């Protein structure tokens, strides 16, 4: 009985080890990819910046415990999120372009969508 339990916990721990290991491998291969490609490095640093910006805004609202110009906060935050997903979309297309959409076109579409997003966002800030 006791033995079984111990194996059970063993399996569990090994699963967690597997979990962290796989995350580790994914992370290291990611680093390798990014370092070899300057475009990706640029995009990813922008992504990181956006995440930081978004979290800062959120923390600010939490800290001052008031969201008075709520639309301003929302538009700032959503612009971060929106720009983030647009960038990720661009990144996905740069790594493996979708059939029928060249990298140049993908970039153009990204520009249009970002411009639109920021136009609406600025309109919403007031």
């Amino acid at each position, binding site marked *: 009985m006791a033995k079984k339990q111990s194996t059970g916990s063993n399996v569990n721990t090994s699963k967690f080890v*597997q979990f962290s290991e796989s995350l580790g*491998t994914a992370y290291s*291969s990611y680093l390798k990819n990014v370092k070899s490609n300057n475009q990706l490095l640029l995009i990813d640093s922008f992504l990181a910046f956006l995440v930081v910006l978004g979290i800062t805004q959120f923390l600010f609202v939490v800290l001052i415990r008031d969201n008075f110009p709520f639309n301003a906060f929302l538009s700032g935050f959503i612009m971060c999120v929106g720009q983030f997903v*647009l960038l990720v979309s661009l990144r*996905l297309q740069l790594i493996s372009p*979708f059939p029928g959409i060249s990298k140049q076109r*993908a970039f153009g579409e990204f520009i249009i969508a970002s411009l*639109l*997003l920021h136009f609406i966002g600025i309109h919403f800030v007031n």
Partner: protein
Amino acid sequence: MRQSTLLALESFQTILKALIFVAIFGVAISTRLFSVIRFESIIHEFDPWFNFRATKYLVSHSFYEFLNWFDDRTWYPLGRVTGGTLYPGLMTTSGAIWHILRKIGLPIDIRNICVLLAPAFSGFTAWATYEFTKELKDSSAGLLAAAFMAIAPGYISRSVAGSYDNEAIAITLLMVTFMFWIKAQKTGSVLHSTLAALFYFYMVSAWGGYVFITNLIPLHVFILILMGRYQSKLYTAYTTWYAIGTLASMQIPFVGFLPIRSNDHMAALGVFGLIQIVALGDYIKSQVSSERFRVVMMISLALIISVGISGLFLLTYMGYIAPWTGRFYSLWDTNYAKIHIPIIASVSEHQPPAWPSFFFDNQFLIWLFPAGVFLLFLELKDEHVFVLAYSVLCSYFAGVMIRLMLTLTPIICVTGAIAISKLFDIYMDFSVLLPSKPVNEIKPIETKDDVKESAALSEEDDDYEADLALDYEPSSKARWFDVAAKAIVSSTFLVYLFIFVYHCTYVTSNFYSSPSVVMPSQNPDGSVALIDDFREAYYWLRMNTAEDAKVAAWWDYGYQIGGMADRTTLVDNNTWNNTHIAIVGKAMSSPEEKAYEILKAHDVDYVLVVFGGALGYSGDDLNKFLWMVRISEGIWPEEVKERNFFTDKGEYRVDSQATKTMKDSLMYKLSYHDFPSIYPNGVGQDRTRNQKITVNDVGPLDYFEEVFTSEIWLVRIYKLKSPDALGRDHGEAATFDRTLQSGVKKRVVKKPTLELRV
């Protein structure tokens, strides 16, 4: 040689397609003009009158004034923040058209633009349906779907000329949004997705039904993820749409912060979060072995789901996210509205439809609908999943609320067209008749019924033809047998199509083209007469009452009074304040003296009732009376009791057997005042309820005086008597007058009739 014929065929095809589109536009617009031809260029029904009034306000004021419009002529004395509580898309569209036409030197009356807006947009709906269906199957199915969409009565019912309602442009936008979504989802193009978001924004600005899109697209994505069909394309399409669409939808004042506050929108947000995680998981999956990935997935899924659900509960509990709205609940529990919000249940378009109305609105498409869904199920590409989700959801919704038949119709047209086009692909292929050719020869086929095969048939079709050619080459008898079978099937369906067109035209011209402001009826000799009592009465109000007079009427007529009579109303079709409506309901169901008190307290000058008894018009106020009672009972259960309006046997009677409460109620008195006396023997025949009203049933009217009754008694307007000269209560004064009158008559027999005193 082969190249040039192919090219010629292609250009011929393009021309033919263009011609077909012109024809479809023509049909879509002209079939909706029945109402203008039969009646006149007039705004229909109730809600369109408000939209029309708002549009007039928009073109006479600036856009900012329109958005900040505080309307003090409705909901007296509260007023309505109209600019912040309407969907401005429709008015802005027609306002923009008006301005553009003026700029290019075509000053057209704003009313005509409003009347003809819906037919104009129906053409675009047909085009969007074509593009949508083309993505699902091919252009021949697309053309069929467009043709169906142009004439399907289910859509025409809300888009005839004059029905200037939000739905008129909303269905177009719905289809365009879906079309771009399907394209975005197929190609992964950010541009298409952005366009989908833009049209989604337009849709949000036009109709509250945008919530349907907000939930359907995430549902599509969610199902695809569950089916293990996640691709980077899906991420690109969905996240772009959601980010831009959500931010854009918040620009509409009426929607405001709802997209992050209300539960209706939470599914989209949840799927947005989910797809981020799935994208991350997809990345990890590409890096590690599949066994390890399973472990990763299990652990992270368990974590995420528990955090997500508890977070949702916590936020709802703490009041950050509004719980689902009443209309939403009434979609799932059909009895919910009846019990909790009678005001929603009282609207006829919120009732569940009768089953025949499905056939009535879609004719043979309704039985092709499952067939089409089944055919799509066999193929089950990513975009087909969307159609499946759409059809399942909408069939249910349309079964619950008759109004939502409108959103079901497009998908019925699409799937029906797919079924028929699939059938024609096989059964209209008479190529076996041609002299035998090499197997891979390209054979274009054209039929007179707009169904065309593209020059390049798909792979399977080529194989199919090849099979046919191999199978039937040897025996000419078998070949003729085959042709005969095909001819029978395809001609049957051509007949069906023909009947469909006939049915659509018939339904449109006879049932969906009535403005309901003006009603058609027949003279004894069979010629058509128009009943124009509503406009007569509203015009009387406009001409004969003070400009700031307040008119109390049941909320159905609020918009029309505001639009046609231009008088201040207490309640209207906006129904934003249940209590205020209940006040009018209470006044109508109370005895005269109490009603007078209530109405006086609200500064009311005139009371307007619609009475169909003389004409046999079933949509009159006495038939809606029970709703007034129910709604006011919801607020004052002590004072108004529904039971008291029914006889002991539980019948709703208005004749001599009616209960005392019923006979005392203001509505009863206003409706039947003087009604029996116009009949020779003093027994009035109520043709709506088929009951006899005698003079003794209708009590005297002491607090109100009749000022106007329209030609066939459809609309009756009463004035609240001004305070008695001697400061008496009106009831006392009238009783006194009556006793005096009878006393005088006893003493002096020959005295001039007293009525002259008035």
